[in-house]
């Protein structure tokens, strides 16, 4: 377990004696020589008293990574899960990629992590083999000991001897057969549940340092805006306010820079908030002061009615449309969406004697480290970047803007500073998910067969936050457009130019949110246009069970979430399977009077199908009565957390569908708190929801994100089944139905 203790006002992580060394100077080779026991790599330490310390290098944000990675390491090692201690890694490149993003912690690290633990296991076995003068092949490691010929030696007894042996090459290390893994691939205990249920879990804002000041910042209301002048006399008169400091202005592209504005630094949060209210600031609202998201939606709509840049092409769509017996066309719109994690962004920085220490609720402690170093103009080696519990993240907290703010203020205030974002700050200064409009057009022949599919999509891509690009790249369409399997002879996908007027960022499942909504809705529209059952139509459009080739998709290459297609092909058999399972759970064929909606989507290498049942409540509004979800993520290490992520994705997707939408007038975000940016509450939540995870031997796919995309289209499709009303613009509340 991670134990955080306060010693002399410092937050220190107590776990393993290796931490006693100076991390600024000590390389891992030195660590290996000078620390007792066995530490073959940065993930595993076996002490001579038998304590096994396992490092979790990813951020815990609710996905359960702290209950999963250490359990995987322990099982591969043969450790007793009751005798391990989890150490939360600081941000350091020695751990490899720590960006807890892209649903990548298990899918990206599964084999490397196992290899790290297997290395330690082989060294413990080698040490036992030397003591007993037997071959390593005759020995096994399990239950915290090495066993052979009826004898055993505990890991602790072997640790010092094992630590003196050469570390085997990673490539030579053998992973356990799956049958030997006693603990994982099933429900694992939630290691932090008790700390959360008793209020002792430490989130970002819970870090307290001696002499720490609290800062809140009045940021430019419009992206690109600047302070012309300000009067801080009333702010400084608030008891507890220590300083008012002007923030440096960011320069485009904004990346993860601080936002500018004026900071109020105080001895407590309340004083800082009261001081900020009393600031008088005159703003130059800058180049985005005319941004109106409604008008922008119209521009996107005009764009998709013109030909765009072709990103996917099979056959001849124009010819097929020209000879169609019937065409079906629909335009969809999804607005900017906000992350609104329950804990708003927060970072604490201490900068003293050229050394910087950061505590932040970050998904990416390495980026936080880099951002602090760049802000302070010091070398990264002078920065320690600690990770707290995240209090929700959903992509927001892999952007280190709030760390940059805290670093700057710690230097200027000459004291440790916590930058506290309010909910209003969070909603008005988000890196919003891209706003999107799409036009889908299909041709049907006289027999009702779909002969053409044309999809045009327009959105300001994330790249606009990092460069001056003017529209999505072909690569951006690989989230639900160019990787969409379609058994249709003529297919073309096009992107249209779109400029950005807010900071655009990634939000849980990213472009899949709107591409999944439009494709999932349009397939249902085609079912009704063809007079077919939506389930049979969906299976037919995805086509026969097969591995889909690039040639069939009509693309030269596919990023495929960074995974090789040979290892993670697009397999329509797996899509069929989740559709069949979810419709079986929902009793699709026996639905009686229930209004059911179905959608299925592959993202982050995982296949998910969702069915929802909707009805009208006593006020005549749509309510989701029941929801079912089937997911195939290949190998699943922690079934319980996979289920909980899918349960959460159903609610997250429902919030987008029902209420989601950040809108801007005169460049300013109109929503500021939970009254104007509504989320699903308990009475909205389905009366029952059921999740089935397909466990298999295939390589692991993502868990955190892929549950989200099929939810909104399943709801829209169910509403159509109930009312005959097709809603193509989210959120549903705009149509007055919820």
């Amino acid at each position: 377990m991670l134990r955080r203790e306060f010693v002399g006002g410092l937050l220190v992580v107590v776990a393993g004696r290796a931490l006693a060394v100076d991390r600024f100077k000590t390389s891992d080779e030195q660590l290996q020589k000078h620390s007792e026991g066995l530490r073959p790599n940065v993930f595993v330490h076996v002490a001579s008293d038998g304590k096994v310390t396992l490092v979790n290098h990813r951020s815990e944000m609710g996905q359960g990574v702290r209950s999963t990675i250490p359990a995987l390491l322990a099982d591969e090692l043969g450790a007793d899960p009751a005798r391990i201690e989890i150490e939360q890694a600081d941000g350091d490149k020695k751990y490899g990629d720590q960006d807890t993003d892209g649903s990548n912690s298990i899918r990206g690290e599964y084999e490397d992590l196992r290899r790290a633990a297997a290395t330690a296991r082989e060294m413990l076995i080698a040490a036992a083999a030397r003591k007993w003068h037997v071959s390593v092949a005759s020995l096994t490691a399990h239950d915290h000991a090495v066993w052979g010929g009826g004898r055993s030696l505990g890991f602790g007894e072997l640790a010092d001897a094992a630590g003196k042996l050469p570390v085997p090459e990673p490539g030579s290390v053998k992973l356990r057969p799956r049958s030997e893994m006693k603990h994982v691939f099933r429900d694992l205990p939630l290691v932090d549940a008790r700390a959360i249920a008793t209020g002792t879990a430490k989130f970002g804002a819970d870090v307290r340092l001696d002499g720490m000041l609290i800062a809140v910042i009045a940021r430019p209301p419009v992206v690109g805006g600047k302070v012309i002048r300000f009067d801080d006399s009333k702010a400084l008169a608030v008891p507890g306010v220590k300083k008012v400091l002007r923030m440096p202005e960011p320069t485009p592209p904004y990346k993860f820079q601080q936002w500018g504005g004026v900071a109020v630094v105080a001895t407590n949060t309340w004083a800082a908030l009261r001081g900020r209210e009393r600031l008088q600031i005159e703003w130059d609202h800058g180049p985005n002061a005319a941004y109106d998201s409604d008008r922008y939606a119209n521009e996107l709509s005009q764009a998709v009615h013109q030909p765009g840049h072709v990103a996917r092409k099979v056959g001849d769509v124009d010819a097929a449309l020209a000879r169609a017996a019937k065409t079906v066309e629909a335009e969809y719109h999804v607005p900017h969406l906000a992350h609104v994690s329950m804990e708003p962004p927060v970072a604490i920085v201490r900068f003293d004697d050229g050394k910087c220490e950061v505590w932040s609720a970050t998904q990416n402690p390495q980026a936080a480290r880099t951002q602090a170093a760049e802000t302070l103009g010091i070398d990264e080696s002078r920065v320690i970047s600690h990770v707290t519990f995240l209090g929700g993240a959903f992509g927001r907290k892999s952007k280190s803007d709030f760390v940059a703010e805290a670093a700057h203020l710690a230097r200027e205030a000459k004291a440790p500073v916590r930058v506290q974002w309010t909910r209003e700050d969070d909603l008005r200064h988000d890196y919003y998910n891209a706003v999107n409009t799409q036009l889908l057009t299909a041709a049907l022949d006289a027999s009702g067969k779909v002969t053409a599919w044309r999809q045009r999509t327009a959105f300001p891509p994330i790249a606009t936050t990092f460069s001056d690009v003017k529209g999505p790249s072909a690569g951006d369409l690989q989230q639900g457009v160019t990787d969409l399997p379609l058994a249709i002879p003529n297919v073309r996908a096009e992107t249209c130019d779109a400029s950005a007027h807010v900071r655009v960022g990634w939000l849980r499942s990213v472009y899949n949110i709107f591409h999944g909504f439009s494709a999932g809705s349009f397939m249902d529209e085609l079912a009704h246009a063809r007079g077919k059952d939506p389930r049979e139509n969906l299976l037919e459009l995805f086509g026969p069970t097969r591995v889909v080739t690039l040639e069939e998709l009509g693309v030269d290459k596919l990023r495929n979430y960074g995974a090789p297609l040979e290892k993670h092909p697009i397999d329509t058999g797996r899509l069929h399977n989740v559709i069949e399972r979810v419709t079986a759970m929902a009793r699709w064929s026996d639905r009686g009077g229930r209004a059911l909606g179905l959608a299925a989507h592959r993202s982050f290498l995982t296949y998910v199908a969702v069915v929802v049942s909707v009805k009208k409540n006593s006020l005549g509004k749509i309510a989701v009565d029941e929801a079912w979800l089937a997911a195939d993520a290949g190998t699943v290490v922690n079934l319980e957390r996979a289920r909980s992520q899918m349960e959460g994705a159903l609610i997250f997707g429902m919030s987008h569908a029902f209420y989601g939408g950040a809108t801007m007038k005169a460049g300013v975000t109109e929503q500021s708190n939970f009254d104007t940016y509504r989320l699903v509450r308990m009475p909205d939540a389905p009366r029952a929801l059921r999740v089935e995870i397909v466990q298999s031997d295939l390589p692991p796919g993502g868990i955190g994100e892929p549950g989200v995309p099929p939810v909104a289209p399943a709801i829209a499709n169910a509403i159509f089944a109930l009312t005959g009303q097709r809603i193509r613009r989210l959120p549903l509340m705009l149509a007055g139905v919820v």
Partner: protein
Amino acid sequence: MIRLNVNGQAHELDADPEMPLLWALRDLLGLTGTKYGCGQALCGACTVHLDGEAVRSCVTPLSRAADRKVTTIEGLANTALQDAWCDLAVPQCGFCQAGQLMTAAALLAEVPQPSDEQIDRSMAGNLCRCGTYSRIRAAIKRAAGAK
């Protein structure tokens, strides 16, 4: 000086009587289990008990909490409820859960066997962005059954 009784412990605070209880608990007393989520009584993350009643500490001025019994998550002693939370692995990120537990504990104190509708109505003010609602419902029922 404002006299505050928190989790059975007496404190004297030299603070602005308008300061919300939330910030006094967190910044002045170091009781960080109570969370800031919205500052406007819209999300319930800051829920504490004031003389046994669930209130939103982010909009409760210190002056109103003075001389009354404040209970925070650190002082919650509803083992059945907290055990149910752990047994059913309710939390995801965990940030809203202190507030969820405080609201649920106040509900169970008033209605030991709440109906589904009573649970939904009582818990409607507590947001969970991770979407743990179905497990919260189940945990409340489990705790109610355990009594």
